[in-house]
């Protein structure tokens, strides 16, 4: 049995009076790729942001390996340094080139010497296929390249897991492929990932496990074969048929 990297228990989150997450439980094992799908506004992104506490949670616990990170005395900065986060809108630091974007966390958070940080950063940029673009600034890169730099930025910190918040939703269709390819390779290399996405092809072929979220609760969870072939809930079936219909139309 693989080691549990992340455990979420009874997580609740409200914005004002609106309950966005209503008691979510799940676990992620080492090396696993967990894909979260569901309609817009169902709480998928909020869930990710609650895991590394970019949003404060109202109730519930989150464990990273054996450590409960929702306790109040925990140094959340140290925890965040070991949880990668890839944003929908990339959020690369605009005033830094690709190399500095990747190594700034190593130097300023992990306090690694510049020389060593540079080596690691170049290595990670090569890993996402951007070894030739290390001196480019974000505004000089395409959306797909920017997202790959942001994946390298997450990888450089050698995180225990990486959270992907709709990493391809802001991209032009022809740029989605290069980002998915990087993610597929990471999955193969055994990087632990939680991916919120609408890319059903990716979900089907890469996910070890799929979670379907609607109205802030997990409606269904299981391997892609099960979810796609015989979903237990009508809502899951409806959502999947709508999405696949859309993809079908795109293909025409």
């Amino acid at each position, binding site marked *: 049995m693989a080691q549990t990297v992340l455990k979420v228990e009874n997580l609740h989150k409200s914005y004002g009076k609106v309950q966005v997450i209503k008691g979510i439980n799940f676990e992620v094992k080492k090396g696993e790729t967990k894909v979260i799908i569901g309609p817009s506004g169902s709480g998928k992104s909020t869930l990710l942001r609650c895991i590394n506490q970019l949003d404060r949670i109202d109730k519930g616990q989150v464990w990273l390996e054996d450590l409960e990170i929702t306790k109040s005395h925990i140094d959340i900065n140290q925890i965040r340094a070991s949880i990668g*986060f890839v944003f929908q809108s990339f959020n690369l630091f605009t005033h830094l080139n690709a190399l500095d974007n990747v190594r700034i966390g190593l130097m300023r958070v992990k306090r690694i010497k510049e020389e060593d940080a540079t080596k690691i950063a170049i290595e990670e940029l090569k890993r996402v296929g951007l070894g030739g673009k290390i001196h480019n600034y974000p505004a000089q890169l395409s959306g797909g390249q920017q997202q790959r730099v942001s994946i390298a930025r997450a990888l450089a910190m050698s995180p225990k897991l990486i959270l992907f918040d709709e990493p391809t939703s802001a991209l032009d269709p022809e740029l989605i492929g290069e980002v998915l390819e990087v993610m597929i390779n990471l999955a193969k290399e055994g990087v632990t990932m939680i991916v919120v996405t609408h890319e059903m092809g990716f979900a089907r072929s890469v996910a070890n496990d799929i979670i379907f979220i609607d109205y802030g609760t997990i409606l269904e969870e299981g391997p892609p074969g099960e979810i796609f072939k015989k979903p237990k809930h009508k809502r899951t079936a409806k959502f999947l048929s709508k999405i696949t219909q859309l993809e079908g139309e795109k293909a025409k």
Partner: protein
Amino acid sequence: MGSLISIELALAFLGLGFIVGIPLAVGEVYGNKFVKNLAVLPVVEFFRSIPALVLLFLFYFGASSLNLNFSPFMAALLAMGFRSAAYQSQIFRGAIKSIDTGQMQAARSIGMSKFKAIRYIILPQALRISIPSWSNEYACVLKDTSLVYALGITELMRQGRYIVARTFGNAILVYIICALIYFVIVHLGVKLLDFLEEKYKIPGYEIKKITTRA
């Protein structure tokens, strides 16, 4: 001589204004209610709402009646330096607020504390954005150094007055020369700031020049 003193005064005012203006701006944007309402806003509003000459008199003659005997230079530095801090803080605040919130989130997501995020991610971007408005502030402060004449500091204006008094009647000529000297100093400084703006611009981030040639 007088023009050198004017430049020195301006640098001192701007320097103090910068050192105090940055924390004021950061406090106004990121501070809690307590910091914002009890520390930042009173300072900013006080120094922005009172005319410079009144501030100078308050810090020099006013303070001395409270047995705080500032030298003319010290009084001028406090009055004009904090006044500039109030204005600079608003320049920086605007710049900080114009930065996408995703920058802060990304910085926090790799484990930076709020302080580190501000120091390494937010301020380097905000300061670049601030340069054009800051060059305005520079021009204002430099020209306003002429006001400290009222405290008896021998800067450019007072020197001009002395020369007029000694040579009887060359007023128009002397003041035209004063005006020219101010003009040249301000102009050179603005040019220097333009140069810095160009030097530190973020590649690819500037508004692309429209090229419509066939």
